[in-house]
């Protein structure tokens, strides 16, 4: 049996051509159809910048990453205090310290400090967008609070033995404390105060440099 021999009659084939024939659409209808399809087909292109930033921030600031960070720091601080109390004069502060041009952090603290700096940078970069609508969500403030606690733990750890990192941590403590004090319905001037604190002390560039230095040592 060849397929040409079983051809359907022309009348039937002609009739079949109307099977699911697309309706005739005007330009306006086609535009409306495309407008509906496009955001679904290309979600990244049409996602609002705030949604992308929010996803990025949530990835960085999830409890899953913050809790191990805090736990590691608490453990580190306790070990540091305990070993300092029993240490003899032979202790060498330079041992196991990765020294780079700008920031030197004891090796056990490098990973934790690097993560902390990255998360803090993400939070501060997201701050203006967060406040643009005149309100800050509770989850954002909770993350800021966690990072403030981490800052204080780091200040109390050997990681803060580096003068430049200590200075940066002290500035971050100040800024994060201001962020934590933001209420859900903030006053208009508060963001400006935080922005001034960030600008006057070059916090973000220093933060990025320190994160880059420590990451390079990991």
């Amino acid at each position: 049996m060849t397929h040409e021999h079983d051809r359907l009659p022309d009348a039937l084939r002609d009739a079949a051509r109307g099977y699911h024939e697309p309706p005739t659409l005007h330009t306006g209808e086609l535009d409306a159809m495309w407008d509906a399809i496009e955001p679904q087909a290309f979600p990244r292109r049409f996602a609002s910048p705030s949604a992308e930033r929010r996803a990025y921030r949530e990835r960085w600031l999830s409890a899953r990453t913050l809790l191990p960070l805090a736990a590691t720091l608490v453990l580190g601080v306790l070990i540091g205090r305990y070993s300092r109390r029993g240490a003899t004069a032979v202790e060498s502060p330079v041992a196991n310290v990765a020294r780079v041009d700008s920031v030197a952090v004891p090796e056990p603290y490098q990973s934790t400090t690097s993560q902390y700096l990255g998360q803090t940078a993400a939070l501060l970069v997201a701050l203006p967008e967060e406040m643009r609508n005149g309100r800050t969500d509770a989850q954002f403030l909770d993350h800021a609070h966690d990072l403030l606690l981490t800052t204080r733990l780091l200040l109390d750890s050997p990681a803060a033995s580096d003068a430049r990192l200590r200075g940066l941590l002290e500035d971050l403590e100040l800024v994060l404390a201001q962020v934590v004090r933001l209420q859900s319905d903030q006053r208009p001037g508060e963001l400006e105060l935080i922005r001034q604190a960030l600008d006057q002390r070059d916090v973000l560039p220093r933060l990025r440099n320190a994160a880059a230095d420590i990451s390079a040592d990991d």
Partner: protein
Amino acid sequence: MADPDLRDKLYRAIDELPDIYRTAFIMHDLEGYTHEEIANVLGVAEGTCKSRLSVARAQLREKLAPYAKEWLE
């Protein structure tokens, strides 16, 4: 085939074809693609495509025979 009722029956018969036969029928007989083109798109041998088309036509003839015998002869 001006009779709308017959047209509906034809469309329904096409709807009832199994997917692989309906696809071959629509692409070849309605859209005008060659067997080679259909075989490439579907990732099957050309002979398979011809066979599917043949089965599709046979099933359509069978389903439509009670209603439009004169057109099928």
